[in-house]
């Protein structure tokens, strides 16, 4: 069954002469439990698609449905229980004045959970951070640790889909390996569906089974990872991108 179905999605900013079409008529499907990648250069619209799915983009048209249910312009709270997002910059995605405990506690509270303390401890455990980190502030955490907290926050409402916006591009290579492994583990344990945006083809090749290549707001090609690995891309832009990444 399709976890995520995106049809003719267009997203734009501004009106009239100032209008910028960030995404144009994009279509793709992600099956339950699958991991789908969105690749492209900066300005290709890949992050905008994620934001539109999450409800962070105001002007969009087309049809998005999650687990068969169509998504409306204003998202009900139940939407955020199924779909969550991990942001790109770990240095900007945590409130500088809130401790880890506050971040996770508030999220759990907003989703109506009662056993907050126990869940905070378990979440930290699931992302590989011990109890020592619970009351730290973001400036006392490294980039990798902050990203783990961001992942814990996204997992708190027990979602089915995780949207990942370049989750490791701001991290060191060795830390990236840890975070990617963590995401793989979490996906296997919880049966999550991933939609991952990245400019790094090898990361997408490692984490995803299918991917869409974007250029200037349009999806130019959708391929599976085997095709990617064998460098058998069809569209000329995909070929260019592959060639530049080796």
């Amino acid at each position: 069954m399709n976890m995520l179905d995106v049809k003719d999605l267009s997203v734009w900013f501004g009106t009239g002469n100032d209008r910028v079409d960030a995404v144009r008529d994009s279509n793709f499907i992600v099956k339950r439990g699958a991991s789908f990648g969105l690749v492209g250069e900066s300005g290709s619209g890949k992050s905008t698609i994620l934001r539109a799915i999450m409800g962070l983009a105001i002007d969009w048209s087309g049809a998005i449905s999650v687990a068969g249910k169509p998504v409306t312009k204003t998202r009900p709270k139940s939407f955020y229980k199924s779909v969550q997002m991990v942001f790109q910059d770990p240095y900007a995605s945590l409130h500088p004045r809130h401790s880890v405990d506050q971040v996770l506690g508030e999220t759990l509270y907003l989703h109506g959970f009662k056993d907050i303390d126990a869940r905070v401890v378990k979440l930290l455990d699931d992302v590989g951070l011990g109890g020592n980190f619970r009351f730290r502030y973001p400036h006392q955490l490294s980039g990798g640790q902050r990203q783990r907290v961001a992942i814990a926050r996204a997992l708190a409402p027990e979602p089915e889909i995780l949207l990942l916006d370049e989750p490791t591009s701001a991290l060191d290579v060795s830390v990236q390996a840890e975070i990617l492994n963590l995401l793989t583990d979490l996906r296997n344990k919880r049966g999550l569906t991933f939609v991952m945006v990245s400019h790094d083809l090898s990361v997408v090749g490692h984490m995803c089974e299918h991917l869409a290549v974007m250029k200037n707001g349009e999806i130019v090609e959708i391929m599976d990872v085997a095709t990617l690995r064998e460098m058998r891309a069809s569209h000329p832009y995909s070929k260019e991108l592959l060639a530049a990444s080796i």
Partner: protein
Amino acid sequence: MTLLDVQNLWVKFPSRQGVFDAVRGVSFTLGRERLAIVGESGSGKSMTGRAILRLIRPPGIVTANEISLQGADLMQKSERQMRDVRGQRISMVMQDPKFSLNPVMTIGQQIIEAYRLHSKASKSEAYTKALEMLQAVSIHNAERVMRAYPHEMSGGMGQRIMIAMMLIPNPEILIADEPTSALDVSVQRQVLSIIDTLVTDRGMGLIFISHDLNLVADFCDRVLIMYSGRIVEVCDAKNLQNAQHPYTRGLLNSLPRLDAPRKKLEVLSRDPSWSNAPSVSGRI
């Protein structure tokens, strides 16, 4: 021939919790070659670049036995003498042109200023030279670019402009601190090939600071790998895949690869002995 000789460079930052050593006993030489300094954040690679140009301000403390530029010891020079060295003899290109170009001056004004700081040229001579330099970095509508402001330029153009500005005084050494990290993949190639051409044509030495092992393996001649302020390995770029040190191997193995799929990536387990061992010398 050796352009730069760095011996036993230390950079220390005193803080409330004690003294933090950002760079610990780094030594290397640079000839007319492309030398890469690779490391993760906190390894001290950017600090090394800045220390050579004496750009580190107090409370940072920089010490070295010697940093000699073709025989002249940079550590002995006064701030005024260093101003003559910076730009003229050693130049630096940084990561993001958004932050290194002055947003309120036109590009032409900035390049001309950079040129006239180190030569006694008149404004019109400087203008002609600037146009030449922009053409050398493959910017074709140079006149229009001279009149434009930095925010009107894309990342790749901005970086090429930066390179033009830094190379116009014809320095002997270029230090490039992550020059392509803020750029898209396709533009990276272009910028790298421009750096390559200019450096080779002018017989300059290049110090290329980066976190991207694969990139430097392709682009540079020799690689110094830094960890925790020390150089842990020195090798030829061609032989990077055969590197010996466990840290280098760990870094190479933790990268996901399209041609070698794995279920899980190898995670680097840090051995404290790596930071305790003395720095490997990169001197030839």
